[in-house]
């Protein structure tokens, strides 16, 4: 065995090990936390890239924990999708970690520095683990690691509202946990195994056979509800606007950028890896049902976002809409559609990450949260605001930004279904895009084309470099991957094909 074959566990271990080391080192010297976290996420990012390369050259990698061959041991199974998610996760976490250095110093009390980084790394480890695992219960465990650390991170500022938001998030998240646990129990009763590949084989013989097929459906329902809560799919999104707007902005970026996507990943795993695509698409049209929900999510999320006055809250509602885009693509279960959904995970992660980091920079510099107060910022923080604009255009899906490519694929996927509902879905996608434009253009207009109340508002006062760099990298990514979308597509396309079995 070469060292490269251990990459699946390495990408999980790096953040988790860092999480254990951080409190000790942070207790000795707080300044050491940030470099440590940055270095380790960089390693995780590089390891993810190597992992992706090795998946692309060798196909799906299966890693047997403890040397027990599946289905008896816990197996880590990295397919294209898993490797893709690892890259997205480690990339955005790296950006958030770089950003945190200066942001956290002002936003959080000094004593919370070490816990902050510990929780961040725990969350990253959980997300990485959930992406690479091939075992249903193991996924549950990783999900809990990331959920619990995210509950704590939402509340970490200690502000009144944040604690309440965190509690709300916790309650709903815990219900989601319980539901998935019940789902796992049902599947275990039916098959006696927890390995996803094994489950998929064994469940295939149970489709449509008497009572056991009912149990199967109940299990599927529990999974759908449980992971929909984690993914904040409408109408189970109610925790998201509070939690994502109240968390520190670097955390909001990670939460909105990737954490809910991991929920989407779990949904995808359940739908296409545990249950067969034919079953969820044709026998029981679950995918079309979640597509409808996602279409509603797009419209409702956007409408809610339009009515917001708080910038971060608006961004949070926009996440509700965009998780709808992702799930819609997945639910379409066509080559183009699922590719589009998976591609949008990356594109939305970059754009929303950038937007939240920009919102954090605005709060850092001016303390403003209200959209109507942002006048004159275009002159005050030109680079930050340019990045904000680019990311916002990517959210709307304006060419040549990355959002346009995912919109293109999603639209093709909706039309590819060839049914009347496909036309409804494409209507939802296009309308969602237009509604997104309404609330982002409002912000952009305020930033650039509105007379500021005070002259001193327009004095050049740029975001510190440490915070600006990740913002600019993400904004640059929105453009570069819009012009060269084949880079993410090289993973997203085979990922979708493998998931759908086409």
């Amino acid at each position, binding site marked *: 065995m070469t060292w490269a074959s251990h990459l699946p566990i390495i990408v999980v271990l790096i953040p988790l090990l860092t999480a254990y080391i951080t409190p000790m080192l942070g207790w000795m010297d707080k300044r050491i936390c940030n470099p440590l976290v940055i270095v380790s996420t960089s390693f995780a990012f590089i390891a993810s890239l190597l992992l992706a390369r090795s998946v692309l050259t060798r196909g799906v990698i299966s890693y047997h924990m403890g040397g027990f061959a599946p289905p008896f041991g816990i197996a880590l199974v990295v397919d294209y999708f898993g490797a893709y998610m690892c890259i997205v996760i480690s990339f955005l976490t790296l950006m958030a970690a770089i950003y945190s250095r200066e942001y956290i110093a002002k936003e959080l009390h000094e004593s919370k520095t070490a816990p902050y980084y510990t929780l961040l790394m725990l969350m990253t480890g959980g997300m990485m683990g959930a992406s690479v695992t091939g075992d249903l219960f193991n996924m549950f465990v990783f999900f809990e690691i990331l959920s619990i650390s995210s509950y704590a991170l939402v509340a970490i500022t200690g502000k009144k509202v944040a604690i309440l938001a965190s509690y709300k998030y916790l309650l709903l998240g815990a219900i989601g946990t319980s539901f998935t646990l019940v789902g796992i129990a049902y599947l275990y009763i039916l098959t006696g195994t927890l390995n996803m590949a094994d489950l998929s084989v064994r469940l295939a013989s149970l489709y449509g056979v008497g009572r056991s097929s009912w149990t199967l459906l109940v299990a599927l329902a529990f999974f759908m509800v449980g992971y929909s809560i984690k993914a904040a799919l409408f109408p189970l999104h109610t925790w998201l606007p509070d939690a994502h707007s109240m968390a520190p902005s670097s955390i909001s970026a990670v939460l909105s950028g990737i954490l809910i996507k991991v929920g989407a990943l779990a949904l995808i795993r359940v739908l296409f890896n545990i249950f067969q695509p034919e079953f969820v698409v044709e026998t029981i049209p679950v995918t079309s049902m979640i597509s409808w929900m996602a279409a509603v999510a797009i419209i409702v999320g956007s409408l809610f976002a339009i009515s917001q006055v708080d910038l971060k809250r608006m961004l949070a509602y926009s996440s509700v809409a965009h998780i709808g885009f992702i799930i819609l693509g997945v639910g379409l279960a066509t080559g183009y559609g699922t590719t589009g959904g998976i591609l949008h995970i990356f594109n939305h992660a970059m754009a929303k990450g950038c937007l939240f980091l920009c919102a954090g920079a605005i709060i850092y510099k001016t303390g403003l949260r209200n959209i109507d107060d942002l006048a004159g910022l275009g002159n005050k923080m030109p680079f930050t605001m340019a990045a904000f604009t680019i990311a916002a*255009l990517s959210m*709307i899906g*304006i*060419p*040549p930004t990355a959002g*346009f*490519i995912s*919109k*293109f694929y999603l*639209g*093709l996927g909706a*039309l*590819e279904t060839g049914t009347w509902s496909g036309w409804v879905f*494409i209507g939802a996608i*296009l309308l969602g*895009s*237009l509604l997104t*434009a*309404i609330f982002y*253009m409002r912000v952009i*207009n305020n930033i650039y*084309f*509105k*007379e500021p109340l005070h002259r001193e508002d327009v004095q050049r006062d740029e975001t510190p470099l440490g915070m600006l760099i990740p913002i600019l990298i993400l904004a640059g990514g929105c453009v570069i991957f819009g*012009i*060269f*979308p*084949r880079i993410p*597509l090289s993973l997203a396309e085979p990922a979708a094909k493998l998931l759908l079995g086409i």
Partner: protein
Amino acid sequence: MIIISCLPVIALLSPLIGGIIAYQAGKISETARDLISIVAAIVSFIVIVAMVPTILNGNTIEYSFYYTAISTLPIAFRVGPFPLFLGLVISFAWILSAVYSHRYMERLHSRNRFCLFMSLTLSAVIGTLFAKNMFALFIFFEITLFTSYVLVIHEETPEAMAAGKKYLFLGLATGLVMFFGILLVYLQVGTLDLGKRGILDGVHGNILYVILFTLLVGALFKAGMFPLHVWLHSAHPIAPSPASAVLSGVVVKEGCYVMIRILYDIFGVNLLKTMLVSNWLVLLGGLSIFFGSAMAIRQHDLKTMLAYSTVSKVGYIFLGAALLTPTGLQGAMVQIFHHLLAKSALFFCAGALIYKAGIRDIDQMAGIGKKMPITMMVFTIAALSMIGVPPLVGFASKWYIVLGALEAGRPLAIGFGLVLMLSSLMNAIYFIPIIINAFFTGESEHGEHKEVRPDDVPLSMAVPMVILAIGIIVFGVLSATTSVVVIKPTVNAMMGL
């Protein structure tokens, strides 16, 4: 040759890079900024001129950015006769407007931004013209919307913001509808290449009408055709005059260009003839002509009147193109050329009036011709061309469109040939009084422009106007020659003759 195939990219990039450099330079020196942007436009123009020999030899220039966008739809450029012809005119008009804006803009704020976005718009328009496939075309088409949005709302007044909002969101919405059409085309035939005439050949059924409708919605919005013109009369007048000139003169032409490519390249003449939509499209064009002219008569604000006049002229272009005959298309092309010259000149004049006398209202223009003779002479020439007075370009275009209508041979088409004549009369109704008023009436008792001294606008503003006026006359006189040399081959290429 490598260098030749790179030319479209250089033409696209030079205003883009020049604009960014100019923006930075503008923080130091305003003159340097304007010089750089003028040079960028000139470079773009020269590069396009450099492509002329190759195209005239019957070749096309292609350049593809491999690895960009999606594998079957890279961002690629292909220059044929029609894009080249339009590119030449547009980039030339842009030079004039860059020169013009140097003095005009000095009274307005955010000049650096204006300069940057003018250059970006030029870049995006050139990208739209030279795009090889519908995908790349749509990319540049949408970018134009955003860059020109910034030009529309330049004043940042509530009215400007409202007009800009209307422009932007309607533009986005229609753009999305067009996007939908593009998706449909791609799923039907698996390609979006604009190279072969009629890529939709072989597709049957109602889906064709859906595609035609959705694609045209996007193009006709940008062109400002009748049912989708609602933004034009508020957005064009509110922009600063150089921007109005390029919006009305150029950006609208971009919409016309896309419309013609949709009709002739995506559908193709044969398919459209079997679809039996020509009459309806002609009807739409006729409505636009009538509506635009009728609304223009009612206006008091000069720039709003000019904007409505644009609606009617776009109707001519659309009508000519929708006739689906070579002569009709030829008329449409001459009309594009003519309108570009004349409307730019008219907006320059309107801008000159605002700059020098602060006049926006038609009723205040009494006697202004004596104080600003050059401006009003240019205005007169352009207006006469608009009306279609014989030696000028406007006459040639109308002439060809009528010929095309006759050639189409249908009663409806002939009827609209007559409509054309009627609308010329309406043009006269709203242009002639202004001219008479300006030259032959004494100053009104209100004396809105009493303090205006009888010297004309600065040289940098006068020269572009005069060049345009000369162009209107020269090309009008030489219209027979130009159409044989330039337009006829272009049309033949478009029609696949």
